[in-house]
C-alpha cells in the first residue's frame, strides 16, 4: 500500500497538469477558431 503514497499524488499531478493546460488554452483563445487554425498551419509566410 506504500506505493499509493507516490502513485496517487503522481496521478493527480498529471491530471491537474492536463486540466491546467486545457484551461490555459481556453483562456488563450485556442478554441476560438478551430477551423481557421487547422488551415493556417499549412501556410508558409514566404511564398
Amino acid at each position, binding site marked *: *500500500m506504500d506505493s*499509493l503514497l507516490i502513485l*496517487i499524488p503522481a*496521478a*493527480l499531478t498529471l*491530471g*491537474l497538469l*492536463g*486540466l491546467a493546460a*486545457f*484551461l490555459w488554452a*481556453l483562456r488563450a483563445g485556442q*478554441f*476560438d*477558431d*478551430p*477551423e*481557421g487554425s*487547422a*488551415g*493556417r498551419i*499549412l*501556410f508558409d509566410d514566404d*511564398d
Partner: protein
Amino acid sequence: MNAVTLGVLATAPAAPRHCLHCGETLRVAGDFCCAGCASARAIIDAAGLGTFYRRLEQSRAHRPLPLEADFTSFARDAGPGLFALDLLVDGLDCAACVWLIESLLARNPSILAARVNLSTRRLALKWRGTPAQANDHAGLVAALGFRIAPWQPMAASAQQDREARELLRCLAIAGFAAANVMLLSVAIWSGHDGSMGDATRTLFHWLSAVIAVPAVAFAGRPFFRSAFRALKAGHTNMDVPISIGVTLACVVSLHETWIGAEHAFFDSAITLLFFLLIGRYLDRRARGRARHAMDALLALSAGSAHILGDDGVAIARRIDQLAAGDTLLVAAGERLAADGTVIEGASSLDASLISGESLPQSVAPGAKVVAGMVNLRAPLRVRVTAAGDRTVLAGIVRLVEAAEHGRSKFVAIADRVARAYAPVVHLTALTAFVGWMLMGGLAWDRALLVATAVLIITCPCALALAVPVVQVVASTRLMRRGVLLLSPTALERLAEIDHVAFDKTGTLTLGRPELVSAVDREALLLAAGIAANSRHPLAIALQRAAPGTPAVAGVLEHAGQGLQSGATRLGSAQFCGIINPTDDGHSELWLTRPNRAAVRFAFADFLRPDVDVALDALRRDGLTVELLSGDRTAVVAGVAVKAGILSWRAEVTPAAKVGRLTELAREGKRVLMVGDGLNDAPALAAAHASISPATAAEATQNAADAVFQGDALLPVVEILRVARRANRLVRQNLLLALLYNLAAVPLAIAGLVTPLIAAVAMSSSSLLVIGNALRLTGRGRREAA
C-alpha cells in the same frame, strides 16, 4: 489546381474558358467575366499572392460587388494614433481566403494587425493613421470579392460566447474531477470484499473529498445560480432538485468520511454535474450558432444611407446616425432608411414589407414615405422627418415586444415536469429520512444517508438530459437544411400546432419581381444582356429569367429611366417612347430596337415553386391552412385560388391579424404564423409559434421562433415534422427517466443503494436517453439518402 487548368485553357481556345478570378464560364472576349473580377485579380497579382488561386480547394473566388457602406464611424480608438475595426466577412470558404486577406492587408505597413477568424467570420484590424482609412482597408477586402459588414451588430452574441466559455470551463473541471474521483471510487468498490483496510478507504474518501468538493462548488455554479433565481421568483425548476441533491450528497459524504464510514457519494455528485454540464453546453452552443448565423444574415443585409452634404456631394452615413432634417438620397433599388417627405423626384415604392400591399405605390414631391419601403424606379430625395426610434418601423418593433410578452408565459416541458417532480422527490426523501429515524430506529446520520441516496437516485440527471439532447440533435439537423431555430421552447410549441396562417407577399410568394410575360427568346437574351449592367430590381429579375447571359458591352445607364446600348433601349415606357402603354398593375420594362416591334416585359411577385407540395404535405399532416394578407382582395383571392387555399382574408391590418389569431386561440387552436413583413411581426409574436423566411425584415425575424432560408416553402413542413418527432422523443425520454426512477427509488428507500449502484444507475439511464435522442439523426440520414 485551378491556375493550372486555366493555363491550359488559355492555349486551347476551343474549350470553354473561365474567368481568371471567379472561375465562371466565359462567353465574352477577354479573361474576366466583369471589371470587378479583373481588378480583384490585379490586386492579388500585384501583391504577389497569385498562389491564392492554387490554394482554393474545390471552392471558387467570388465576384466582387461594389462596397456601399461607410465604415469610418465604426473605427474604434485603440491607443495614440491607432485605430481598430471589426468586420464581418462573408464568402470565406476555406483557409486560403483567410490567408489571402491576412497576407494582403499585411503588405500595408500602416496595418499593425489583421486577423481573420474562420469560425466566426470576424476580421479584426488595427492600423496607424486616421479613422477614414477604415474605408480603404474594408474596400480592399470587398474588392477581392468578399462581402463585408460592420461587426457591431454581432457584439450582442459576445455575451453568449462568454457564457458558453464559462460552461466549457465548468465542464473541464467537472470532467477532471469526475475522472479522478471515479478512479479512487473504483478502488474503494473493489476493496469492499475486505482487501482494502479501513484506514486506506478513509484516506481515499478524504482524497475524493479534496477533489470533489471544490469542483462541485465551482462547476455547480450555473445550476446553483439558476435554482436560486427560480426560488427567488417563487417557483421551482429542474435546477432546484439538482442543486439540493448535489449539495446534500457532498455534505453527507463529508460527514461519512469524518466518522470513517463505509460509503461516500462524492463520485455521484461530481459525475452528475459532469453529465448535466455536457447537456447544457451542447444546448447552449447549438442555440448560439443559430443566433450567430441569423445575426450575420441581418448584418450583411443592412446597408448604410447616403445623405446630401452641405457642399452638395453625397456622403455615406450610418443609418443609426441619421437625424431629422437630413436630405436622404435614395437610389433605385435601395431601401429607405428613415421616415420622411419626398422633396424631389417621382418614383414608385414597394411597401410590401410594411403593409403586405404588393402593388407599388407612386410617389411625387410632398408624399410621405416610411422607412422599410424599397424605391423601385427613379432616384428620390427625401427630407428626413423621423429616424431611428421615432420611425413607424421602430413603432412596430415596440408592438412586437409587447406581443412577445404574452408568450414568455409559456413554460418549457422540462420545467413543467420539474414543478410536479421536485416536490414529490423532496417529500419522498423526507419521508425516508423521518421513517427510518422514527420507525426504523436508525441514528439521524444513517437516516440522512438513506435520504441522500434517494435524492441522488431521483436526481433528474436523465430528466435534465432528456430535453436538451433532443433539442441539440433536432436543431443541428434543421440547421443543415438552412433552418435556424431561435427560441429555446420553439420545438415544443411547434409540435403542438394544428392550424397554419400564412402571410402572402414574401411568404407564399417570393417577395421579389419575376418575369411573368411570355416573350421570344431572342429579345429576352438581348434584354438580359443589357440588364446585366444594372443593379435595379427589375434588371436583376431579367437576369434571373435568362441566367448566364453575358453582359452586353457599351451600355449607358440613364438613372431612373433605363439602359441604352446604341439604338437599343431598355427601360420605362416613357424612356422607350411608348405612347399609351397598357396598365395592368404589373411592373414593366420595355425593349425597343430599331425597325422592330417594342417588347414588353411584365413582372409580378411569383408563388414559391413548391407551394402546392408544401400545402398538400401540411394537410396530409392534419393541419388546416389559412391565408392572412394585408394586400388587396383581388390579388389575395388570385393567390388563394392558385395555391388552393379555401380560407383567406384580405386587407387585414397588423392589429386585425393579431385579433384573428386571438380569435383562433379562443377556439382552442394552436396557430402557427408564417410571415415576413413588418405588418406580420406583431402577429408572429402573438401566435402560438411562428416562422419567417430569411428575407424578412429584422424585426420580423427577431419575433419568429425559426427562420428558414431559400426559395422553397417545404422547410416549414420539415420544421413541423422534426418538431413533432422531437417532441415524441422528449416525451419518451422523460418517460424512460421516470420509469428508471420508479424502479430505483424503492431500492433507495430500503437503504440498499450504495455509491456503486447509484453510479451504474445514473450512467446507464443517461446513456439510454442520449441513445434514444440520437435516433432523430439516424432517421434523417436515411430519408435524405
